[in-house]
């Protein structure tokens, strides 16, 4: 009896996790993959009962998803957006974390909260607020510029759109990344700094030669998160769209999935596109982790 109980206990413990994973993740993913191989078929005008049926599509949804130049163009736009967003956001996060960590910094707790606070504002709300500020006739910023005899940049059209969108994400995301980096800065043993100072290192040298290399794993982690968030950008362009002619319904790959599924009513091709996006995200993320792992975690991996 005792032996049996010992052996079943581990299964009992992992059961909730396995059941939750199966029901909430594996089954829906499996269903989406199944749907991606199906299509609807219509006979005649498609108005009578039974005129619409579902059938196997083979790889048709995948070939049309991969051959869709809008999806590719959307991926390109997201790359430009990410190229703008990730370096600026992480650069600012690192800078703020280092400043907060410096010995002479005052009002540390207040600054930390002030920088972190935008992260607590939901993306949709942030987008609406910023959208208001981007419209020249309603924005107080443009009003001030106008009074000074200057005209502000057009952020809701052309390439200004990338700045407008990246700015919302930078505003919202810097605080979170800063906290992650700051936390790992605080865990660096003080002896290292003492040794450096005894060797005559300046604060700047300490930051560059000790702090940044020591928090490299955190930087890798925040870069990893930012990369995934970038590939999945949806809420910001979706909510800025009604304010401008400059964002199409397929601006980002996920917006295209949304349009296909809920505007065109074609859940089959939307599923196929989702599967493609998921694969690309996985490949890019793990490719990066593998690459970064060698450098960031040093000897034990190489």
């Amino acid at each position, binding site marked *: 009896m005792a032996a049996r109980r010992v052996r079943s206990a581990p299964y009992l413990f992992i059961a909730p996790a396995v059941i939750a994973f199966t029901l909430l993740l594996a089954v829906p993913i499996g269903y989406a993959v199944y749907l991606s191989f199906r299509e609807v078929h219509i006979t*005649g005008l498609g108005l009578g009962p039974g005129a619409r049926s579902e059938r196997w599509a083979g790889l048709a949804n995948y070939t049309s998803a991969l051959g869709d130049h809008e999806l590719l163009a959307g991926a390109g736009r997201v790359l430009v957006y990410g190229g703008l967003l990730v370096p600026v956001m992480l650069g600012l996060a690192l800078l703020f974390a280092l400043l907060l960590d410096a010995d002479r910094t005052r009002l540390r707790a207040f600054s930390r909260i002030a920088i972190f606070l935008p992260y607590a504002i939901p993306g949709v709300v942030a987008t609406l607020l910023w959208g208001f500020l981007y419209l020249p006739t309603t924005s107080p910023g443009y009003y001030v510029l106008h009074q000074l005899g200057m005209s502000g940049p057009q952020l809701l059209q052309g390439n200004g759109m990338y700045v407008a969108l990246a700015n919302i994400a930078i505003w919202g995301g810097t605080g979170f990344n800063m906290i992650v980096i700051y936390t790992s800065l605080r865990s660096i043993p003080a002896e290292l700094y003492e040794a450096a100072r005894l060797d005559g290192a300046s604060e700047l040298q300490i930051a560059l030669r000790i702090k940044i290399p020591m928090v490299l794993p955190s930087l890798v982690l925040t870069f990893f998160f930012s990369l995934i968030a970038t590939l999945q950008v949806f809420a910001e362009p979706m909510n800025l769209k009604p304010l401008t002619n400059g964002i199409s319904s397929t601006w980002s790959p996920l917006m295209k999935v949304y349009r296909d599924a*809920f505007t065109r*009513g074609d859940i089959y091709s939307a599923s196929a596109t989702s599967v493609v996006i998921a694969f690309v995200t996985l490949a890019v993320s793990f490719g990066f982790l593998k690459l970064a792992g060698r450098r960031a975690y040093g000897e034990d991996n190489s």
Partner: protein
Amino acid sequence: MLSAAPRGLRLALGLTSAAVAATLVAGCSSSGTTSAAPAASGPVHLTYWAWAPGLDQVAAIWNKSHPTIQVTVEKQASGDDLLTKVITASKAGSAPDLVQAEYQALPTLVSNSVLADISAQDGSASSKFAPGIWQQVTLGTNAVYAIPQDSGPLMFYYRTDLFTKYGLTVPTTWDQFKADAEKLRGEDSSKYLTTFSANDAGLFAGLAQQAGAQWWTTTGSSWKVSLDDAATQKVASFWGGLVKEGAIDNQPMYTPAWSKALDDGTQLAWVSAVWAPGVLSSSAPSGKGKWAMAPLPQWTAGQNVTGSWGGSSTAVTADSKNKAAAAQFALWLNTDPQAVAALVKDSYVYPAATDAQTGGALATAPDYFGNQPDFYTQAAKIAATTEPAAWGPNVNTAYSAFKDAFGKAAQNRSDFLAALSSVQQTTLADMKTQGFTVSG
């Protein structure tokens, strides 16, 4: 996102809708089971998915006088959301008994086998509506898929004080409209007559309808898609020309900047529908008493036709176990004088039923148009001139393609005809992909 329909109402009530949206998700899963088979004892229970405000109060009037048929209204977010939701529910066999459906969504719903044909129960309903409206609920067949509820005939709204100030005449033709737009730019370069907005295809559809466009038609078992027909090309190149020469603005409607432009008189006019007073009173509160309404400008002088922007109907679903009772309610709701009066008062709709368009709650002009006491008398006359619309089974795809293509063209002030042709190609290709027998 939101397309067509009593937009003003939706905007005004958007917050309320958002608040109830969460509850609805829960309601979705349970509502299908409420329509039990008619038992000898006890009343029949019907569920009704709709987004118009105050419908529950109208249903309460029915419930009081019809103890054997009890209707429960379940509030929905908006037309587009409801379309997707009801198609999904129908696939699962759990659609409600009744749904509110926008006219342009009816072919999509019928094509997905969501709706029941209620031609056996509709009685003499067709005589109570303008032919252009009734044709939209039959899809030109012998079937009847819904009872019309409200309509949105297009009209021309303008600032009387500023028209006088700049010496503009109220345009009766589109040529005069163009002349006004250009004259105004010459008088004051900070003002625009109006804007061309690419974020709502419903308005463009109404304008094309006025010009005589027939976007989707059928012959035998084959569809014909012609979003780029001669009438629509005329409309597209007219507005494209105005945008290109800078005679009108190119920024979208329903933005804070747009509201401000209407409120402070930067834009002097708005081509809109009968529900515009609701939008104007919330977007341009300081213009109260300064705006007036006139018939839509015409393509040929002396002509008298309009298109419509939005409007919805009440449909019975194929899943309903009490189709006769549901049809009886739909008919009562949209034709009974007491019901329609309540619809006007509590749901703020402009009734599709011809008799109800004057008198009752519509005897006096909306508050915002106090300077135009015969507002609704004029509106009823204009409503009677509505040209028929021709909707197809993938209006949503066409609307989304319109927003993308015309948004880009408006932004770049480039060729609207090229944009129109891309909308046509996208819509046609989508129907082909779905397997429809179709020609362009």
